[in-house]
């Protein structure tokens, strides 16, 4: 901690910071915790999926207040104010899946205006719309995209740790396909996901939403010795997984303590070795039983070798691409093509870690950005390739996350990174872990080929 940072943490420092407009960031609701206030459902014409999905989760939807001219009142200065909720809503679900025309977008405005200043802390705005690919006509396709503009802006206007996200549902999507996503968005698990839009379609196989989705399932996590990887191991273990924690042999002691803490096992393995996939399978069969199969592989291991391109040599270039992208592909390739003891289950999940650097580029990180953008390309391409199998492939793209690695960034720069998102703070490793666990949930079979940013709606690449 440098001097400036120490000063900043003192009461006097905090006072000055507040005066300068650097208010204490809101404390986010995290974990498997629903909002305390009611979940309001605004069902627009042609909707219905939202109500059915909430019903499946056992959540009783409250009626929305709509901002109609006749329902407005005047404040003391004579200005129009929208109708006011008697209890602050915890979340609002706007079911716009039937919206096809520009004029119908008014329904969204009407439903959202009354909640913009009344949502509880860490409240939720969840908008459902039909994917542009599944609607007919130019206007309907344009309208689908227009909804995303609303979503992204609402995310920026919300306060108190509240988030806004949009789910584009594909044709044929049933409540059972959407339930895991709805549950994730409502709960604290999605604390640091805001301003995002992703697609949900039909699952090859349907599973119901439970609090311990990984009971009896083996999940392999690479790079699990510390930071985000250790948080991933803990989060999956909390949700019932038998975790195989993988890291390079040199990190073996930290790895062993993570593995023992979560009651899993440790595999000291350099993921860039040619037989890494085979050794993962061998380990699973050996330690967790001959009949065990891998339910999910979390490709978290990654390295940085930052240099401006003007100073970047072939070694730094190649090592980053090999660890962050090529190794992951070799492991996937082995596991997807070898039906061996301890290998990938018939139905399975593969998730990777992209980065906002991959989305937007980042100075000094051509190699890293290439590898991380490559992970996104891989996700999109694998979805097509695995279309016939009940295996989903997804990724998350973390923004600024508080880790040992980011703690090394100089204080002022770090504080700027932290605050350059809609939630005014850095994310925690667990936020990345929760999103990965949601993607790996057996009930998330309808979520495939998606890259979800866990960045608090960072300005970078948004």
């Amino acid at each position, binding site marked *: 901690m440098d001097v400036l940072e120490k000063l900043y943490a003192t009461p006097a420092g905090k006072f000055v910071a507040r005066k300068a407009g650097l208010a204490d960031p809101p404390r986010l609701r995290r974990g498997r915790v629903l909002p305390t206030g009611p979940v309001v459902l605004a069902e627009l014409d042609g909707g219905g999926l939202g109500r059915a999905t909430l019903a499946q989760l056992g959540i009783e939807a409250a009626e929305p207040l709509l901002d109609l001219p006749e329902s407005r009142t005047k404040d003391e200065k004579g200005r129009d104010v929208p109708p006011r909720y008697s209890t602050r809503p915890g979340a609002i679900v706007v079911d716009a899946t039937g919206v096809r025309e520009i004029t119908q977008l008014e329904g969204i405005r009407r439903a959202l205006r009354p909640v913009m200043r009344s949502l509880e802390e860490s409240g939720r705005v969840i908008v459902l719309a039909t994917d542009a690919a599944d609607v007919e006509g130019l206007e309907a396709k344009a309208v689908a995209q227009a909804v995303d503009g609303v979503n992204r802006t609402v995310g920026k206007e919300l306060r108190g740790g509240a988030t806004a996200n949009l789910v584009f549902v594909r044709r044929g999507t049933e409540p059972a396909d959407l339930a895991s996503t709805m549950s994730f968005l409502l709960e604290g698990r999605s604390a640091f996901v805001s301003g995002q839009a992703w697609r949900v379609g039909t699952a090859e196989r349907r599973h119901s939403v439970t609090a311990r989705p990984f009971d009896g399932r083996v999940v392999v996590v690479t790079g699990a010795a510390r930071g985000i990887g250790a948080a991933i191991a803990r989060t999956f273990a909390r949700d019932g997984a038998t975790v195989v924690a993988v890291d390079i042999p*040199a990190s073996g002691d930290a*790895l062993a*303590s993570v593995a023992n803490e979560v009651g899993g096992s440790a595999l000291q393995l350099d993921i860039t070795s040619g037989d890494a996939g085979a050794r993962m399978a061998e380990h699973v069969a050996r330690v967790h039983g001959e009949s065990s199969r891998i339910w999910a592989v979390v490709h978290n291991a990654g390295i940085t070798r930052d240099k401006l391109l003007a100073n970047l040599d072939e070694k730094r270039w190649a090592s980053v691409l090999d660890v962050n992208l090529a190794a992951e592909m070799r492991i996937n390739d082995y596991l997807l093509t070898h039906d061996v003891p301890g290998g990938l289950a018939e139905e399975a999940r593969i998730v990777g870690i992209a980065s906002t650097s991959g989305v937007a580029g980042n100075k000094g990180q051509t190699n890293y950005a290439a590898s991380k953008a490559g992970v996104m390309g891989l996700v999109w391409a694998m979805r097509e390739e695995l279309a016939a199998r009940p295996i989903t492939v997804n990724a998350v793209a973390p923004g600024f996350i508080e880790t040992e690695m980011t703690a090394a960034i100089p204080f002022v720069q770090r504080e700027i990174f932290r605050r350059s998102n809609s939630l005014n703070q850095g994310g925690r490793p667990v936020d990345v872990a929760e999103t990965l666990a949601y993607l790996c949930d057996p009930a998330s079979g309808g979520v495939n080929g998606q890259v979800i940013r866990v960045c608090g709606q960072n300005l970078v690449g948004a």
Partner: protein
Amino acid sequence: MTSRTAVVVGGNRTPFVKAGGRYADASAQDLLTAALDGLVARFGLAGQEVGEVVAGAVLKHTRDFNLTREAVLGSALSPHTPACDLQQACGTGLEAVVYASNKIRLGQMDVAIAGGVDSASDAPLVVTERLRKAMLALSRARSLPDKLTALARIRPADLAPVPPAVVEPRTGLSMGESQALTTAKWGITREEQDDLALASHRNLGAAWDAGFFDDLVTPYLKVARDSILRADTSKEALAKLRTVFGKGEAATMTAGNSTALTDGAALVLVAEEEYARGRGWPVWAKVVDAQVAASDYVTGREDLLLAPTRAIPVLLERNGLTLDDFDFFEFHEAFASTVLATLKALEQNGVGTVDRSKLNVKGSSLAAGHPFAATGGRIVASLAKMLHERGPGSRGLVSICAAGGQGVVAILEA
């Protein structure tokens, strides 16, 4: 009773580090707990109960009277796992494996963890005999004059602690001095010793580079490799070292061909064969048989560290084997000349010839270091893995010499 077989399914150790190095602040219990936690993690045993954990240490504080049980309680294993301390000087680790294997064979348990630890950095410091006696007198004294008399007996020099030394109580000779007698008696040359040391470093270095230890070692306190290892050492570099044991012309033993004081811990996971297969554990090697022997070194008629030469023929005969029936020989390198004198003695006694190309092929104590009680666990885990890689039917012979003129030898078979 149906026949039961004890098999080695895996192992784990800390990297070995020269005494006073990176583990200087770690106690023997810390080291043993670390080795245990690494093994538990490797086999996903957190929270589980193991039949028994048996281990020991040569340099032991009185507070470590229950060293192994304390390590278990500090580890991720279930607290219902019982533990036992066992000690036979440098034979401790191997003797622990024999103990565990025998109990498994007898049906007293299905799975055990066996090995040892030593920290020369954490060696107990002892007060002088005069100080001890004065303190006893002081505690017995009732009156003030008596107390003052007792205190007055203490001289300033008595207050200095007695540094720990590994000395044979009956000969007063240190291990190195004893071995210097053996080296001279058997005519072991400096060059032969340096060659053996060089091979040890080269073999251990190559094994590390090949990833052989990836599933045998868990890093500890930011040490990821054995720190004594000098993979790039040369014949010339070893030849330059000055001698430390022996006198004049006969002095051939150096810091390069003698083991250094070392800190480290090593354990192996032993299980009943069917039980191991049932759990999907790899059956690396069976613990076939073992033999202990002791030499008459006090009279000077025999050598302090050559007791294995008495144990090996007995073991071979009982199992109907000769030295030609082995694929690997793991002879603990207390000193290079110990191994060389052992080989000579075996030949001279008509036991047979050890094929040097099969000897310590992944390096041994000269390069890895020798935390006394940990050496047995290191050797058994490595040998079991080598045999597993070689294939069914392959055999290995372990030979470990120990203080007090003792020796433990054992046969492992894939």
